[in-house]
């Protein structure tokens, strides 16, 4: 018969080993996700620089606005899908804080994109609508979570219905980024989540799908 104490210690050592191995695998998994996102972020940052240069080229060389708008939309769609992945990985992240800093950089990137889109609208007329969605990052508040789920779904649906007419830019409003805080102050936004339509209309209540659509496209 086995010595009882031996089985207790063996099990403890085995469990610790499995746990340490699991934690290492967890770090590996989360690091590989964060590396993937870092790489995409770098590409997106390069793309944004390219975008800014292109806008200057558009101005200086009179390149058609249609091309510039199309390029901005493609870029916005790209970082939107990257942001979706980021949110997904971020909610599954348990062990590290890497994704939070990537998130902040994405928020900066999206803020830059927003400002670029304002310039573009000024130069090329108002052929598209900008919807900036400021949300609360990692909120524990039940009401805020519920409202954010609702806003995300509704905006995603509107975006799907109006692919080329609406630029959707989600930005976390509580990441301690001065530029984002300044923008929020500028619109007197104190509570999140908030939808900012064409830099004019601030929405922070629950409203009908058609009402929101109307505000975005006919305001």
């Amino acid at each position, binding site marked *: 018969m086995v010595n009882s104490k*031996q089985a*207790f210690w063996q*099990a403890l050592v085995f469990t610790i080993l499995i746990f340490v191995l*699991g934690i290492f*695998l*967890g770090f590996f998994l989360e690091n590989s996700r964060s590396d993937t996102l870092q790489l995409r972020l770098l590409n997106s940052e390069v793309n944004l620089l390219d975008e800014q240069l292109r806008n200057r080229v558009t101005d200086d060389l009179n390149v058609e606005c249609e091309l510039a708008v199309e390029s901005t939309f493609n870029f916005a769609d790209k970082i939107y899908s990257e942001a979706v992945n980021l949110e*997904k990985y971020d909610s599954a*992240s348990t*062990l590290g804080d890497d994704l939070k800093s990537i998130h902040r950089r994405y928020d900066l990137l999206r803020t830059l994109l927003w400002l670029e889109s304002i310039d573009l609208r000024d130069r090329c007329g108002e052929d598209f609508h900008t919807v900036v969605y400021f949300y609360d990052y990692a909120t524990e508040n039940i009401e805020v979570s*519920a409202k954010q789920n609702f806003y995300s779904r509704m905006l995603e649906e509107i975006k799907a219905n109006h692919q080329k007419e609406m630029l959707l830019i989600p930005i976390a409003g509580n990441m301690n980024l001065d530029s984002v805080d300044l923008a929020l102050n500028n619109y007197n936004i104190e509570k999140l989540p908030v939808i900012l339509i064409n830099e004019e209309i601030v929405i922070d209540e629950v409203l009908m799908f058609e009402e929101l659509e109307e505000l975005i496209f006919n305001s």
Partner: protein
Amino acid sequence: MVNFIDFLFFFYMFVGLYMLSLFIFIYLPNRLKVFYFPNGKVEGVSIIMPCYNEAPHIGEAIESLLSLDWPKDKLEIIVVDDRSTDNSVEVIKEYERKYDNVRLIVNSRNSGKAAEPTNIGILAAKFDYIAVADADSTPRKDALKKMIGFLQEDKRVGGVTCAVLAARPETFMQKIQAIEYAVIAFNRKLLDLIDAVYVTPGPFALYKKKVLIEVGLFDTKNMTQDIEIVWRMLSKGYIARMSLATKVHSVTPRGFRLWWKQRIRWNIGGKQTLWKYKGLIFKKGMLGLFIIPFFSFSLFLGVFGLGLFVYLLLKRLVVTYLSTSYSIYASSAIVTFQDLTFAPSILNFFGLVLFLLGLSFTILGLVIINDDHVKKSNVFNIFFYLIVYLAIYPFNLIHSLYKLAVGKYSW
């Protein structure tokens, strides 16, 4: 960094993995010995069967005891009726007339529990070995042969139990219990290998009469006298053994309500016993070093885990309810593609590993027990047992704690 809730999940997984590992590390070096039983001498055994309104089963139960592979002159069957209101006494009297070694004793009052009639039977018994059997259980013919040796080979052994398995499972609830009983039987054998058998279940157990008398017989106030008696033996330096080589089949509750009531009783009895022996924690051998801490820890983890589960579930439900209400009001999509995407976290992987280990351990237990009724278990039943049935248990635990606290419980 790891937040508090994630930390709790990690902690639960660590404990779960540790317990599974412990059982595996006990099993592996002893895998060829789990069916071992010492060959014992044939000596007189008095079988005590408490009975209350068991007319439909009592005849079959006496028959099964009479058919035990044991010399008839070394076997007496004492049925102690606890003032049944059905015709149990008439049925038992028939057997008393027919067989010399069957005796009927009628209790002077209805005690409402099995302990008092069992004690009456023990005091009236003529042999030195006492078997206690339930009126709805049927031990295998070789039960005494494969159990008595444990009592004879070691002076420290005060009681022996065997594999208690479900008899003729018909309903879904009984089929799930058949799996549970088989897994428990396997676990109990593993506990036996570390001297930590903590119960000699009522369906069939064998004791030394002098040990039962020395420790003061069964506790008539406890709801699970079969747990309490073992803890008392352990507290006095005795141990209990488990013979996996033989089985007893016991009738299980057919439906959920009866099952719930039975488990409330088991849980209340367990808590009564835990409370009674709380002072021995970390003191007396395996009782103080393993059994009492294990029971206390399980109780704490069960209650706390249920609280955590309910909190997280309610939070999720409220968020879903509110956001869905908003979406319905706004006539917008209730679910989008993004809601359906999922990135597994390290906790999900740990959970999966733990579940697969638990599943493998359950299947190993079922294969080793190899009971005819358990062989019919299908994959769905095993998954249901692991995912739903075991998850119901903490709710029963809370209910039993409530009943214990307000004093609202009966046999």
